[in-house]
């Protein structure tokens, strides 16, 4: 009887317990809190005005993961990512950040950006260039009426070892899950 009890204890101690596997994606404001996302709390971002956020992803998948955070620039009309069908947004890609993350590790880095080239024409604002963390990125034409309701879309992509390519979100137990965020802003002329 005792032998059975102790062997059961040994079995429980040596068998890894199943746990929920997931990723977390977040954006924090300039003070590393879920606030102060815009300078002076004003969603109107004028050209050359610098905005500081902190971008982070946590891996709780139980093993090392290659993660890619894709940044897209959208306007009011473009579709956001589709949660039900696990489809990424068709908005133009600006840049991407990649890193291997260990299990239970959080990868966080400052995301400092500003609009460096913008064209105002015919009641429409076109963002042509963004500077992100000191590097300049050209943007495939993205415009908004009077500069209102632009959005930066952050999508979490992971490396799929079966296909040998990045996939939007991750697959767990045959279920495709996604993580994405968007932050709205207005690109207005200098105040």
């Amino acid at each position, binding site marked *: 009887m005792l032998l059975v009890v102790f062997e059961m204890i040994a079995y429980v101690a040596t068998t890894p317990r199943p746990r929920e596997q997931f990723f977390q994606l977040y954006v924090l404001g300039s003070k590393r809190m879920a606030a102060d996302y815009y300078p002076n709390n004003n969603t109107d971002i004028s050209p050359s005005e610098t905005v500081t956020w902190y971008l982070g992803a946590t891996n709780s998948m*139980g093993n090392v993961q290659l993660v890619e955070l894709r940044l897209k620039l959208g306007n009011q009309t473009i579709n956001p990512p589709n949660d039900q069908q696990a489809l990424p947004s068709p908005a133009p890609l600006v840049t991407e950040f990649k890193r291997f993350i260990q299990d239970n590790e959080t990868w966080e880095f400052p995301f400092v950006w500003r609009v460096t080239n913008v064209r105002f024409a015919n009641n429409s604002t076109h963002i042509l260039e963004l500077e992100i963390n000191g590097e300049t990125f050209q943007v495939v034409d993205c415009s908004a009426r009077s500069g209102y309701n632009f959005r930066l879309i952050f999508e979490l992509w992971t490396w799929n070892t079966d296909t040998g390519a990045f996939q939007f979100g991750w697959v767990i137990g045959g279920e495709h899950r996604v993580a994405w965020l968007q932050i709205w802003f207005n690109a207005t002329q200098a105040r």
Partner: protein
Amino acid sequence: MRSSRRILIFTIALLLILVAVHSNTSTYLRADEIQPGFNQAITQVHLAESAGATQSEINELLKTLNKALELNEQALKLTSPNDAQRRAELLNQANVLLNDVQTKAGALETVASQRTRTSTVLAYVYGGIAAAVGTFAYAFLLAFYRRYRIKRTFQMKVTAK
């Protein structure tokens, strides 16, 4: 005659455009296309983790993987033909690191699986030893209790009421 010459010029121009487009698409490669070594390295690291490698052991491999990724990113930014040699050097360095990760992860998998097997066997053996010790302790305590009860019985004083 003139029309056939036009067709010939048009065909050559078309071929030249096709070659140019092809060479352009060949030089622009995405990160997930150029390094199949990444996939093999991740797979090998996953095997080491499944075998029971610890977080600190994996952390060493992770640093090397991130270094390889960084080199890969640097190489991708070099799109000018003048940078071809530098680009090849960076990709080569990344490949060396990825091969290193694969080798170390393979060795780690062997060590970790042996360690896991040993600790599993030991856990069951300790379980058996604990059961035997428990059984002996129980038998000893039972015998001690019985002796105590007998001793107490003989120590009883019978008094008339």
